[in-house]
């Protein structure tokens, strides 16, 4: 069951340059538990898309199975959505992207959906640099099946039932970077001011953008001892930088060329303005972030912010030289060689 929100668009609601209000980016009322981190991420997605001035129907919302994967119902109700089978959102998104390269692909997944059953597809969607944004709503557990540890649960993290996890957690950001992801960020569902610009930057990146968002499960993994609880994350969150996303280059004024500020130019000319906190780290230097993450772990810190970006990124359709026209728009003339050629093929086969 999903509830459709009443749509009385207030005439004086602020509109973005395309003429849409924030309401146009909302979805049905959430059926998640009250306080679930995932709902905050949905809200950030709504804000990011509104502010980014995206046409809602040009977005495809893709997900797998889990509480997290239900969220696409709760934002962008004017976009088509696709709830794939468990762990297989990446392949469906890849296919959809091949079918029409001109849309915005926004994938949402959970840590179970991605790091357990979905690990193979996750790895390979990265390797192919599919032009999409992939958000993991990471709560360290399987919410929908009632709280079992997931593969991102940290070693020693204590579950609601008091059981200590015996396995090392998989660090999805580290993995994504090592696998060649061209945009990798980490954030916290409770920190909208950081998350919204990250989502905007990710959506503007050409190629695979990965965002790992720690998103507490209030029902099954928000207890003392859990390393994915609200309290724990708030205490151990270390922002690498503060950041801003600037949709068009021209808006930058000279005041920003402060020593600590790094400007990263995106494919489409927009900019990320980073106010770096950690001096050893450079988001365009892979090894610097890998070592920063390793070091932060030994300090039990969770690094957040834009971790890595590769602006030379070439997305899948470019890599394989696909025509610019979306393939789903091709017609007989472009697709069918016709009877004459067929007759010559017949002849060659005689």
């Amino acid at each position, binding site marked *: 069951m999903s509830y459709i929100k009443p749509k009385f668009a207030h005439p004086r609601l602020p509109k973005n340059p395309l003429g849409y209000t924030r309401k146009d980016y909302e979805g049905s009322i959430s059926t998640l538990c009250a306080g679930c981190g995932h709902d905050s991420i949905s809200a950030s997605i709504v804000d990011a898309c509104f502010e980014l001035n995206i046409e809602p129907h040009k977005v495809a919302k893709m997900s797998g199975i889990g509480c997290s994967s239900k969220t696409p*119902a709760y934002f962008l109700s004017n976009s088509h959505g696709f709830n794939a089978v468990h762990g297989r959102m990446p392949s469906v998104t890849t296919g959809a992207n091949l079918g*029409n390269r001109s849309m915005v692909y926004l994938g949402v997944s959970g840590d179970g959906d991605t790091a357990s059953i979905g690990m*193979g597809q996750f790895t390979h969607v990265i390797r192919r640099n599919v032009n999409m944004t992939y958000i993991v709503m990471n709560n360290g557990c399987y919410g929908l099946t009632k709280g079992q540890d997931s593969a991102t649960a940290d070693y020693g993290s204590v579950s609601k039932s008091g059981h200590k996890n015996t396995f090392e957690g998989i660090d999805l950001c580290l993995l994504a970077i090592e696998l060649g992801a061209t945009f990798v960020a980490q954030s916290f569902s409770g920190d909208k001011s950081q998350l919204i610009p990250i989502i905007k930057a990710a959506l503007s990146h050409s190629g695979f953008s990965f965002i790992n968002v720690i998103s507490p499960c209030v029902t099954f993994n928000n207890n003392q001892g859990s390393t994915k609880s609200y309290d724990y994350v708030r205490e151990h969150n270390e922002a690498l930088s503060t950041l801003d996303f600037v949709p068009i280059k021209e808006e930058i004024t000279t005041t920003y060329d402060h020593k600590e500020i790094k400007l990263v130019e995106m494919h489409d000319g927009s900019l990320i303005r980073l106010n770096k906190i950690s001096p050893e780290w450079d988001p365009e230097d892979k090894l610097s972030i890998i070592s920063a993450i390793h070091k932060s772990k030994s300090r039990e810190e969770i690094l957040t912010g834009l971790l890595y970006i590769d602006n030379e990124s070439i997305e899948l359709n470019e890599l394989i030289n696909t025509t*610019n026209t979306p*393939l789903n728009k091709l017609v007989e003339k472009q697709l069918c060689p016709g009877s004459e050629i067929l007759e010559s093929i017949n002849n060659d086969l005689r």
Partner: protein
Amino acid sequence: MLCMSGVNDFVVRFANVNGTGSASANYLFAKSIFRMGVPVSAKNIFPSNIQGLPTWYEVRVSEKGYLGRKEGIDLMVSVNPQSIKKDISSVKTGGYFLYDSTKKLHDEFLREDIHMIGVPLMEICNREFIDPRQKQLFKNIVYVGAIAKLLNIDVTVISDLFADQFKGKEKLIAPNMKALGLGSDYIRDNYNFPLEFRVERRNLVGDAIMIDGNAAAGLGAVYGGASVVAWYPITPSTSLVSSFEDYARKLRIDPITGKNNFSIVQAEDELSAIGMAIGANWNGARSFTATSGPGLSLMSEFLGLAYYAEIPVVLVDVQRAGPSTGMPTRSQQSDLISAAYASHGDTKHVLLIPSTPTECFQMMTDSFYYAEQLQTPVIMMTDLDLGMNEHMTEPFKWDDNRKYKRGKVLSEGDLEVIKDWGRYKDIDDDGIPYRTLPATHPSKGSYFTRGSSHDEYAAYSEDSATYVRIMDRLVKKLETAKKLIPGPDFYNTTDLSETGLIYFGTSKHATEEAIDILKLEGETVDAMRIKSFPFNNRVKEFIDSHKKNICN
């Protein structure tokens, strides 16, 4: 026995070592018979190995046009010492055994009841060629030359075939012709020829072509408008995708930009391959994947999703011998139940079952139409024999007036007009709802595609009545499918017989020949070839009208 060996009616078998390039030489031989206007069928019987293990190639020549395999080997061409014992024993009494006589044949291999033809292949090649690779490769052409002589095959036919084969690399023609001549001359100088069974020119192949089913299906996918292909390598389906790729690289490059009007992705496994094909079709691009048994098993969860969420998708299952890994290079038609009911819950799929490369082409082009029209997976069931062996078959046809019918897809304009659209509403009472593609309209027609149960508006629902309504409509849709997909073919059916014979796919050739034999022996058997599933109503009628039904 119906067919005694004789003119244009015999079997030649080649025994080779895998990975030595023999298959193309053997095919050259088969094709030359075809070019002489005589029906021929060729089977490559190869191991699941890259190099070194025994491999066979069997050619049946049949004036009557029978393309199934036939018992009894008239001429064995033996160039593999590893399998020689088995090979020599499989020649029929009175038959011929051609071998490389560079080394003397071991006494234990001699048979009194067959004719031995020694040709010193290795010796000839070592003498006549310098390059070590040529010494090896041309052994194959030498024996082709020898049997061409024995079987009375016209040398000009073969030289024409070389001309075709080496277009652009003409300097290869001369050494090949030389090798051919060496074999031919050796026979001329040392043996009586032609043999009692031999080839004589006829005009029996009409406008037929020779091609394998995978190549035909790959071409069919190009003509059918497929633009996205995702796949994972597996024998015997791999060459189907290669065929699509080769044809697409020739026929589907944008002349102005040089860019591809298609995309092909080698997926990381079959789960991903079918997922991609589903994603592309969901987005309105015709897309397919091809696999064999193990891949089909892996795809079953996704097929259930496509069935229930009503997403068109085309899958080709080029079947091999199961269960499990089974025999990857042997043919079998044993995936039918798994394919028809792939996935848990009450799932059922549309199957197309071609028997010839021409049907592979045809059904492949149509599969996209069926899938889009019905909004459901369509699985084309071929097999290794059909897919990987070159068959004599009718030429391909295409009607240039044919338009791709994309099924019930709503445009932006439609959405402006339609009131109360629901993704899963049965408007036309045929069980088929109307769908929308993403990005069609700024504020109408968006919906949520899901494998969980849903109502007519695609909203999640756990309501029993809603569930039953949707499920009943899916049943109705498959009823509609029965009318759309090809019904059975009847062979020799008189309705006089108490016995009904039911067959499908590559059993066609053997079954129809058997029926002819029975007929000659005075026995009538009614026969029906099934070409699709769910079964057309005529299938039930046929079964009901016969006391005894035998399934082949």
